[in-house]
């Protein structure tokens, strides 16, 4: 059989996007190599580090364990779609203020994962944040400042609502 | 610890070699300090190696050169 790429129509960061990919290409590869959205990082390529986390139809997934062709008709949010135009998302702002990143390679995955948490659960406890983020590995920070950044962003989001 | 004469590290090594044959070969390779060896003068590692000048009462140590992670 002739090897044919597949045309995929999807929504990425609120915009309709079409691309061609090989069926064997992961969503991570499609984002990075086909669409040049390199903010989503590869750390392990088997779902165990969380650096490639994206929001896929409202749920976070590791994009290395999703095929690009599965994006057909879905809605995807990547790190490039987290800021509101020129304004950083509260999580991004708090990661900066709390120095919650050192090398920064895990940061996009953490921010995307934490955003999905705050979108669905305002005011999560420290334990809840730690559990939610347990699929995201960071080797530089020991997590302390990351957890604090998420807590502060959560508090900020609640203030805005009030 | 031994007392030797010299005003630079190179001279110190020359003096050492006269007292203990073979010392120079342990420390030098083709006339230059071996890369895995650092020279500490009074506890402080010098970047000038063989060219470093030494004071009459200086303590000189040849230590492992290390950088770290």
């Amino acid at each position: 059989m002739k090897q044919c790429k597949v045309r995929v129509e999807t929504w990425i960061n609120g915009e309709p996007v079409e691309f061609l990919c090989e069926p064997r290409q992961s969503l991570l590869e499609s984002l990075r190599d086909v669409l040049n959205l390199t903010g989503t990082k590869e750390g392990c390529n088997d779902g165990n580090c969380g650096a490639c986390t994206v929001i896929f139809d409202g749920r976070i997934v590791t994009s290395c364990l999703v095929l690009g062709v599965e994006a057909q008709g879905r809605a995807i949010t990547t790190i490039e779609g987290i800021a509101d135009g020129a304004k950083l998302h509260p999580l991004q702002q708090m990661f900066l203020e709390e120095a919650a990143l050192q090398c920064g390679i895990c940061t996009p995955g953490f921010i995307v994962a934490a955003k999905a948490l705050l979108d669905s659960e305002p005011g999560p406890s420290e334990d809840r944040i730690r559990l939610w983020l347990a699929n995201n590995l960071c080797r530089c920070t020991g997590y302390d400042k990351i957890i604090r950044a998420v807590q502060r962003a959560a508090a900020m989001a609640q203030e805005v609502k009030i | 610890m031994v007392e030797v004469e010299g005003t630079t590290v190179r001279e110190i090594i020359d003096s050492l070699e006269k007292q203990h044959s073979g010392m120079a070969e342990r420390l030098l390779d083709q006339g230059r300090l071996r890369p895995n060896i650092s020279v500490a003068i009074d506890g402080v590692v010098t970047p000038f190696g063989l060219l470093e000048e030494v004071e009459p009462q200086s303590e000189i140590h040849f230590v492992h050169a290390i950088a770290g992670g």
Partner: protein
Amino acid sequence: MKWFDYAAPTSLAAAITLRAEHPGSRLLAGGTDLLAQLRSGRIETAFVIDVKRIPELNVLQYDPGGGLTLGAAVPCYRIYQDAAVSRAYPSLAEAAGLIGGTQIQGRASLGGNLANAAPSADSTPLLIALGAVCRIVGPGGERMVAVEDFCTGPGRTVLGPLELLVSLHIPAKPARSGAKYLRFIPRNEMDIAVAGAGVAVTLDDGVIRSARIALAAVAPTPLFVREAGDLLQGQPPAPEIIGRAAALAGEAARPITDMRGDIEYRRHLCAVLTRRALNAAIAKAQEAN
């Protein structure tokens, strides 16, 4: 990864036809095992069939009389976010929350966890304890297989080459019953069970009417330890008899020594986890009315 082609059928019939047309095809549900295995070269295939668009594999339906129907591709998060499931089978909701981390739970399904047939699968011992049954569909029709009979070895199941695991069926929750799955892992998340124990207990008039116990990661397949549950039948839930049942589970375990632990340690863990799980399940049963 070698080239493969991909299709996402929208009916069971279409999926079975694709199975027939593409010998050696692989089924993709959450993909959290399949894609990792394809990438590592542990398995190869020329054709991947995505079953997530087939309605029967996406059913999540609870009926207090008939029990729970759980489509094989329903991702974990839907299970623990479902209010009815969390009420009727809190232990199942908990177990769904143990598979991988949050991201994995966004994709992985209990059907996939079962069909992957890893001895360490976290949801399978509990499904066995709860008396779950698999609905399997193939060209010749459908059949029902108890979960404890589904796995035949590491990575091997009773599924024929053209068959699909469609759904899991869990009997209605009996009154005064409780269940619990406990596993032991060195980290607190993101880990493969060194050993695991799933139990379900039903009480009646102060005694244990029935108990089912199954173990993870201590045999070539998830291990149903019928005799350990039977020992409890008709007994008041006292520490001594619970300890004996737990010990029986430890003895029934047939673990290997590998990087996760040695035989002695794993048998010991089976007994500890079974005892802890029984105590938790009995407490829940006593709370229930």
